[in-house]
């Protein structure tokens, strides 16, 4: 039992986590003929709360309630894993990543997200504007424009051998590489890191 607890509180390796995430695809298909996708939930929230007669948001969102319930579950799962079976140690990322991030002023690995960025004090500062407001906007706008995110395109789309999803995934990566290697440094300097 002790060994089990130790194992379950350690960070899970990729070859455990990846296949478990992949299993979501057949589980959702067989349980209710649902296609795995998460970013659509943001659209359903728009349709539910502020449709504003926009054709893109005037559809029967009640049919898509499962998707909202699913993401509420993801939130609860995050709470469960953090509260009951969280890893007591600090996050260990590659040495080279630690060096790169230290150069940007990020050195606190005590939690899943760097405390220097993700805290309420930063909300009404340039840091909050960049990482919460602009970052979130790009995620919401981009995923809907692309018609899906990592789950809908990279995992569900490529698993079902749809080439438009391969294109989308390639451009997710292109955007991410550009932000990380070119824009992130200057932007972080600009907001006071």
């Amino acid at each position, binding site marked *: 039992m002790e060994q089990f607890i130790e194992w379950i509180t350690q960070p899970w390796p990729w*070859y455990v*986590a*990846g*296949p478990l*995430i*992949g299993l*979501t*695809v057949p589980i*959702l298909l067989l*349980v*209710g*003929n*649902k296609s795995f996708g*998460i*970013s*659509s939930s*943001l659209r359903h929230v*728009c349709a539910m709360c502020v449709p504003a007669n926009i054709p893109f948001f*005037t*559809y*029967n969102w009640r049919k898509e309630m499962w998707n909202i*319930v699913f993401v509420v*579950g*993801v*939130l609860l*799962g*995050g*709470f*469960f*894993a*953090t509260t009951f*079976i*969280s890893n007591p140690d600090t996050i260990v990322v590659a040495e080279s*990543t630690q060096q*790169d991030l230290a150069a940007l002023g990020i050195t606190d690995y005590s939690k*899943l*997200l760097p405390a220097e*960025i*993700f*805290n309420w004090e930063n909300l009404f500062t340039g840091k909050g504007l960049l*990482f*919460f407001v602009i970052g979130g*906007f790009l*995620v*919401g*706008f*981009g*995923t809907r*424009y692309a*018609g899906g*995110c990592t789950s809908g*395109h990279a*995992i569900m789309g490529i698993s079902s051998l749809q*080439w438009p999803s391969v294109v989308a995934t*390639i*451009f*997710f990566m292109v955007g*991410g*590489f550009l932000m*990380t290697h070119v824009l992130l440094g200057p932007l972080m300097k600009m907001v006071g890191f």
Partner: protein
Amino acid sequence: MKVEEKVKNIQPVECEAPNMQESKDGLLKYLIIGILFGTVFVKAEIVSWFRIQEMFRLQSFFMYGVIGSAIAVGALSIFLIKKFNIKTMKGETVNIPKKEFRKGQIIGGFIFGLGWALTGACPGPLFAQIGSGFTVILVTLVSAIAGTWVYGRFSDKLPN
């Protein structure tokens, strides 16, 4: 006019993943699947901003292993479902909507990539981060919903 046609007129834009409506108790299973999924997200540190940085800096195989093995398992499952014509629990034939190519997959995909590297999260991990106690990510989520809304508002004016 047939009923289907009427419905089509009321719903000019169908959702990417059209589905049948579920009863209230039928929804519980999606809550449970979501909880398991969110647990994996946190336990494998996929929701960690640090892991996403590591991935985009090509300094660890970790995230590539996660996404790659998820795709492999997903693809194998879909292959088996099709090959053996496995039905859903209700006995329906499994239906996977076809994704049409649009310019949005390039432009929107690129824009999402920028945001992914900033927030360290795609939409799924955003929810798990909030659950993990990073309540400030609620702001990011609201902003992501606003981004989705702005796309919907101007989608007819954007190259598609």
